């Protein structure tokens, strides 16, 4: 009787272990299905022509996504240009003045920024840049994405710099170095890997963002390098073509999806390698 009860408890424990095992690995099924499907559907459409041509009108075979590729690069480069300096400076501020009152509000703001739905950021960029400038533009898209990059960069900079030993900074001060040179010549170079992995992560995060670009960068079927004109981007192209009723456009979207996926995965793996090497907590 007693052994029966113990057997039941051990059996229950084993059963639960199997249940957890099954549930945990069941999540891998949709992930594998998505990756497999995107690769299968996309690989057939990727060739040299696909990478160097702009999309053709419906009905014509072929065409490519060069406008979206270059547009994405333009928007991301511009967003990085805005977000990286501000983000790093704010991160340095938070780690240097961690007890000040402004630091408290600043941290709260970072938390809030991180949680804002991306579509709301699109609305904001629309009112701050699109309306005053009188039209959709690459610049407004970049500004929206920069707002999304900021919290990640600030957080990773702050966390990295907090982990540095204070003796490092004290040694530099003892040599008579002024504050800004201590930061630029000692603190930032030592923590560069952590800061860099935050920057990479933020770029990986915004590369796939569509919602903030809907009413800012807007999309453009032609190649454009003008920052004050509408510009196409990969996720926007995927969204517009995927929801269109034409099969030719779906094909383009599958190819673009694969490229976007590879790009994002590459950025994530690269970030992981940096942060694993330096044990950065993000």
């Amino acid at each position, binding site marked *: 009787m007693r052994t029966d009860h113990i057997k039941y408890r051990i059996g229950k424990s084993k059963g*639960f272990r199997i249940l957890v095992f099954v549930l945990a690995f069941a999540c891998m099924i949709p992930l594998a299905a998505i990756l497999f499907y995107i690769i299968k559907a996309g690989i057939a459409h990727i060739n040299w022509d696909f990478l160097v041509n702009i999309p053709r009108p419906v009905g014509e075979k072929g065409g490519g996504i060069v406008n979206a590729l270059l547009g994405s690069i333009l928007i991301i480069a511009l967003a990085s240009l805005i977000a990286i300096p501000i983000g790093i400076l*704010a991160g340095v501020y938070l780690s240097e003045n961690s007890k000040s009152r402004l630091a408290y509000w600043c941290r709260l703001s970072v938390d809030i920024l991180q949680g804002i739905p991306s579509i709301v950021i699109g609305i904001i960029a629309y009112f701050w840049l699109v309306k005053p400038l009188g039209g959709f533009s690459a610049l407004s898209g970049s500004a929206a994405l920069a707002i999304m990059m900021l919290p990640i960069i600030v957080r990773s900079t702050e966390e990295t710099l907090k982990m540095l030993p204070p003796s490092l900074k004290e040694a530099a001060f003892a040599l008579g170095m002024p504050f800004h040179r201590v930061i630029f010549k000692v603190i930032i170079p030592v923590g560069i890997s952590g800061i860099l992995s935050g920057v990479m992560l933020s770029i990986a995060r915004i590369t796939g963002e569509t919602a903030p670009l809907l009413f800012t960068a807007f999309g453009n079927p032609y190649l454009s390098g003008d920052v004050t004109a509408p510009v196409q981007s990969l996720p926007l192209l995927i969204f517009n073509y995927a929801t269109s009723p034409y099969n030719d456009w779906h094909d383009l979207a599958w190819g673009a999806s694969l490229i976007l996926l590879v790009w994002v995965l590459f950025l994530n793996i690269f970030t992981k390698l940096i942060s694993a090497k330096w044990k950065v907590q993000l």
Partner: protein
Amino acid sequence: MNMETSIPASVIPSPVVRDGAGLRKRVRRTFRQIRGEGAFRSLLLIAGGLLVVLVLGILLTLITQSLPSIRLLGLKFIWGSTWNPVRNVYGAWPFLLGTLLTSFLALLISIPFSVAIAIFLGEYYPSSWFAGALKNAVELIAAVPSVIYGFWGLAVLVPMVRQLEARFGMEQPLGVGIFSASLILSIMIIPYAASLGRSMIQMVPGHLKEAAYGLGATHWEVIRHVVIPYTRSGLFAGILLSLGRALGETMAVTMVIGNTSILPKSIFSPGNTMASVIANEFTEADKTVYLSALIELGLALFLVTVIINIAGKKIIDRVTNE
């Protein structure tokens, strides 16, 4: 200021002695650097303050831009169940309902999986090679762009749901709708609760578990009566973060929910969420009230997600500082 005259030549290191102008230059540079120090400090202050100004600006812009709709529609905006911009009737209830239904359904579907992953990685196999693989795969789920989830959902999931609906004998098997959106969302939000849950479970002190084992508890009983109660608030915070993510998710939902402003009758009927209606109609809004009503939806979304995220963060802070 003429330092070189007051200091005996023998005291000064040799390279400077030969060149008095060099020392003067050096002194001047030092003064400039000290001034630079102050400038740099204020630069840092500006960068920090800019973030606060940014958030306040976002809030202020949303409020001022949605004022016309708040003034004109008042509380009717929330409870009105008709959204008809042509007749100038704006009731947001279909979208509120759509958002709540998709988010909570997605949460309901995803919780068993994310808790299982958290227990698996935190308790059963904290450091084996396939646990590492699972951890990376979970992070991969978070990394895939939402527009790709949407596209895959449209091409693969929606036809599957349509077949399912046809088998259940539904009159109009559309495939697109609240159920499909919830399924896609439930995959997308797994990582948030899972990774936080994992780190919380790993923080359970070993002696508590060992004491339970010492009393003869099985592994399941240790998890049920020690690990889960100890990490309850951490798991709850993870679920809150997942919910925040689900509420604000736009693209994947927009692509599979069917986009109609009619009040959903069941979880299989097409609908719209607050985020998806903004994405669909923002550029078409030709009237001030119409645009302002959409922004009011954005404001509501902003406030709700901010509150949920801050609550989640506060719980995490409290748990990790204990």
